[in-house]
C-alpha cells in the first residue's frame, strides 16, 4: 500500500443523546477510490461533514496528509487539498461558467496575490489562474458555454460545472456526497464516467446509497451502520461479508 492521504481516529459525533458517528477510524490511501455506504441514518453524511469541517467532532482526530486537521477551518482544509462536491448542485448561478471556474482556480493562488493586486488588478489578468481555468473548462467540456450564466445551464452541465469547481481547486482528495442522487440510470452512468474522466488521478471518497454503483467503481468500501464502522474491504470482501449481508444487503434491498 502507498501513503495514507486521509485518516480518522476514533471519530465521534454526538448530538445530545444521539451518537451519530461512533468511534469511526478510517484510512484512505493515496490514489484510492473509497466509498462509504450504509443505510439511512448510518452516519454517512455526518462523517462526511466531520471530514470536510462543516461539523466539529465530539471526540477523535482527522488527519490529512499526515497533519492533524481536526481544528482547521473548512476553507483552510480546501487550501490544503481537501475538496468537496455538493449533493444538490451548488454553483454560482448568477456568474458565468468561466467565472465560476476562475474563482475556484483563484482560491488556489490567493496566497500569491498581494493586497494591492487583490483590490485593484483586473481579475482576468493573472496568467496562471487563466491557464488553470482554461484547462478545467476543457476537461469538463464546457469551454463552448463558458460565457453563459451557470444558472442557464442544463442540469447535467451544472453537475459538470460542480465537479469543475472541485477540480479547479486542485485537490488531492475529493469528497463526493451522493453525486448521483435523484438521477436516472443514464444520468448516473454519465456522471460516473465524468468522475472517472476528470478525477481518476486523485484520491476519492464517495458517500453513496446505491450499492450496485459502489460495487462497480470502488477500490475499497467502508460500511457504516448506526454510526459505527461495520466492515471495510474490497468490493468482493464486502459482498462476501456475513455481517454486511445481514445488516445491510439483506435488510434494505427489497
Amino acid at each position: 500500500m502507498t501513503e495514507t492521504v486521509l485518516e480518522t481516529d476514533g471519530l465521534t459525533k454526538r448530538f445530545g443523546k444521539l451518537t451519530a458517528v461512533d468511534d469511526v477510524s478510517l484510512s484512505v490511501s493515496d490514489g484510492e477510490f473509497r466509498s462509504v455506504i450504509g443505510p439511512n441514518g448510518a452516519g454517512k453524511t455526518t462523517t462526511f461533514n466531520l471530514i470536510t469541517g462543516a461539523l466539529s467532532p465530539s471526540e477523535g482526530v482527522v488527519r490529512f496528509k499526515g497533519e492533524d486537521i481536526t481544528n482547521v477551518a473548512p476553507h483552510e482544509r480546501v487550501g490544503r487539498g481537501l475538496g468537496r462536491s455538493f449533493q444538490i448542485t451548488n454553483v454560482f448561478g448568477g456568474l458565468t461558467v468561466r467565472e465560476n471556474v476562475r474563482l475556484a482556480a483563484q482560491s488556489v493562488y490567493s496566497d500569491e496575490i498581494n493586497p494591492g493586486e487583490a483590490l485593484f488588478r483586473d481579475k482576468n489578468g493573472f496568467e496562471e489562474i487563466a491557464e488553470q481555468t482554461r484547462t478545467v473548462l476543457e476537461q469538463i467540456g464546457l469551454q463552448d458555454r463558458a460565457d453563459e450564466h451557470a444558472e442557464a445551464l442544463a442540469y447535467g452541465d451544472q453537475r459538470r460545472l460542480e465537479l469543475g469547481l472541485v477540480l479547479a481547486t486542485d485537490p488531492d482528495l475529493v469528497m463526493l456526497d451522493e453525486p448521483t442522487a435523484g438521477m436516472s440510470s443514464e444520468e448516473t452512468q454519465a456522471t460516473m464516467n465524468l468522475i472517472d474522466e476528470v478525477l481518476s488521478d486523485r484520491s476519492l471518497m464517495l458517500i453513496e446509497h446505491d450499492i450496485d454503483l459502489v460495487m462497480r467503481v470502488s477500490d475499497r468500501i467502508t460500511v457504516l451502520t448506526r454510526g459505527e464502522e461495520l466492515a471495510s474491504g474490497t468490493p468482493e470482501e464486502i459482498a462476501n461479508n456475513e455481517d454486511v449481508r445481514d445488516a445491510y444487503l439483506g435488510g434494505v434491498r427489497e
Partner: protein
Amino acid sequence: MVAADFIEQLLNGLTLGMVYVLLAAGLSVIFGVMDVINFSHGELFALGAYFSLSIIAPFGAGTGFWIAIVVAPVVVGLIGAAIERTTVRPLYGRDPLYHILLTFGLVLVINDVIRLIWGTQQRQLAVPEYLSRPVSILGVQVSVYNYFMIVFAALLAVVTWYLLNRTKYGMIIRAGSQDREMVRNVGIDIDQYYTLVFGVGAALAAVAGIVLGGYQNVNTGMGNSVIIPAFVVVVLGGLGSFRGAVFGGLLVGVVQTLMRAYSGSVLATFGDTTLTVPNLEGLTVYLLMIAVLLVKPQGLFGTRGEESDGEGEILVGGYGGVLADSTRVRLGGIAVVALALAPIAILFMGDQYYLVVLNEILIWAIFALSLDIVMGYAGLVPLGHTMFYGVGAYTAALVMLHYSQSVFVVLLGAILICAVLAWVVGSLSIRVSGVYFAMITLAFAELLYSAVFKFDFTGGSDGLLGFEAFLGLGTVGESLSNIEFGLLGYELGQQFVFYYLALLIAVLSFLFARRMMNAPFGSVLQSIRESEERAEFIGYDVNRYKRRAFVISGGMAGLAGGLLAVSPSTVIISPDQTLNWIHSGEVIVIALFGGMGTLYGPMIGSGVFFGAEEFLSSYTDQWRLIIGTMFILFVLFVPRGIVSIPSLVAQRLETANNADGAVDMDEPEVRSDD
C-alpha cells in the same frame, strides 16, 4: 421613602413595558411566521391613537374612551389585514430586505396620511376622569391610569397567549413560526393565516398606541419613537417568540425607566469611594441587545435555529440589462460631463439652491455606493449603516475644530476612524448572519446615536458647530468660505468649489469600487453573494472577506459623512441629522430603489430620491405620501430598481412583438430534464 420612590419608578417602568409587550408581540409573531421586518408597525401604533382621538371627540372622554379602545384597534386591524393582502403578500419568498423597502414606504405613506387628516400638532388623548386621578397605595403615588394600563395590557397579553397556545389557529401559527415548510408539508395552507396574524398584530399595536397616547400624548413622531425599542424587545426576547416579547418588553420598559430615574445617583459609599450608577441612560438596552445577539443570537426565548429557512432570493440590478457595456460606459461619461456642466446651467437660472441639492445628492450617492459594496456584493444587510455616515461627520467636525482644517486631513481622518469602527463592529457582527446581522448593526448604530448625546466633546443634543474647512494643506490653500471669484459677471462661491470637490470624490469612489469588483477581491465578494457555502468550500475564508468589505464600506460611508461636515451648507452636525436610524433605512431604500449590486444604481437612486423629494416638496405638502407610494410600487413591480427599467421595457416590447408563444426572458426554466 427611597423604597416608595423605587416602587413608583418600577411601576412606571412596568407601564411602559406593557406598551412594549403589546407592540412587540405582534412584531415578533409577524416576523416569526412571515419573516417580515415590519417597520410600519410603529405607524399602525400611531394610527390607533389617532383613530381614537376622532372617536372620543363626539362621545366625550367618559364613554368615548371605551368605545375607542374597542373600535380603533378593530379598524387598524382591518387596515393591517388589507395591507398584508395587497402589498406584503406578493413579496413572500423574497429576501426580508424587500420588506424593509416596502414597510419603509408604508411608514412614509401612513405617516403622511396622519399629517393630512389630523395635522402635525401634538394632541391630548382624553381619558375618563376617574382614570387620570392620582392614587396612593402604601405610600406609592401614581395615577390610576398606570394600574389600568398594566392590568389592561396584561389581560390582552393573557388572551393573546391563550389564543396562541390553546386554540387550533394559534397552534398552527406557532408551528409556522418554528418551521413554515413543515406546516405546508402536513397539508395546512399557512399563507391563509398570514392575513390574520398581520391584522391581529396591527390591532395589538393600535391598542398600545391608544394606551400610551392616554399616558403621554399623541403626536406624529410617536410611531418613529417606539419602533426601535420595539425591535430591541423582539430581538432580546427572540424573534418569533411570544414569551420572549413579554419578557423583553417588561425588561426594556423597566430598565429604560430606572436608568432614566437613577442615572448618576449615588448607590453606596465606602469610606472615600462612592459608587454611583453609571450614566448609561439610553445605552443600556442597546448594550444588552448586542450582548444577547453575540451570546445567543436567537434571543433569550427564541427557538428558531439560525437561518432555519433558506433565505429568499436577493434581486440585484440585473446583469447589465439590455445595454451593452460600451453603451453604459458612454452613458456614464455623458452623466459625468452633464454633472460637470450643471453649475453653469444653474448659474444662468440664478438660483444657487439647486447646487445645494446637487451637493446633497452627491454626498448620498457616495453613502449609497458604500452600502452597495456590502449589501449588493457581499450579501450583508446592515440596518445601522448610518453609524459610519454619522461618525464620519462627527470625526470631520472634530478634526476641523481641534486639529486641522485641511479638507484632505479631515476626510482622511473620517475614513480612517470609520474603517477602524467598521473593523470592530464587523469583527463582532459578522459571526451572526442574516437578520441577526442587520439587528446587531442597528444596535451599534443606536448605541452611538445615544452616546453622542452623553458627551461634551460631541456637543450633546445640540451637536457641533463653528467649524470650517480649508481647501488645501498646511498653509497653502484657502478657506472654503473665503473662496469667491467672478466669472462672466457672475459670483461664484464656496458652493461651486465644494460641488466640484464632491463630484470628483464621487466619481473616484465609483471608479475605485468598480475596479475593486473586477479585481480578485471583489470577485470573491460576488461569489459569496451567490453562495456562501460554495465560496467556503472552494477555499475562501468567507468571514474575512466580509469583514474586509465591511471595513472598506465603512470607510467610504465615513467619507460621505466627512463631506457632509465639509459642505458649506452644513452649519451644525447634530445627532438626528447623522446618526438617527431613519438614515440607515433611507440609504437601504435608495440603494434598492436605484438597483443594488450595480454600483451605479444606488448612485442614480440617490439622485432620483432627493431630486423627487425636492421637486415634489415644492409643489405639495404630501410629498412623503407620493414617495412612499413610489417605493411600494417599485418593490412590487420593479424590484431590481431603476436600472432594470430599460430591460423591463425591452422585455415588454419583445413579448408584444412575438405575441404567439413568446419566450419570457426572465425565466430560463428550460433547464430541468434535458
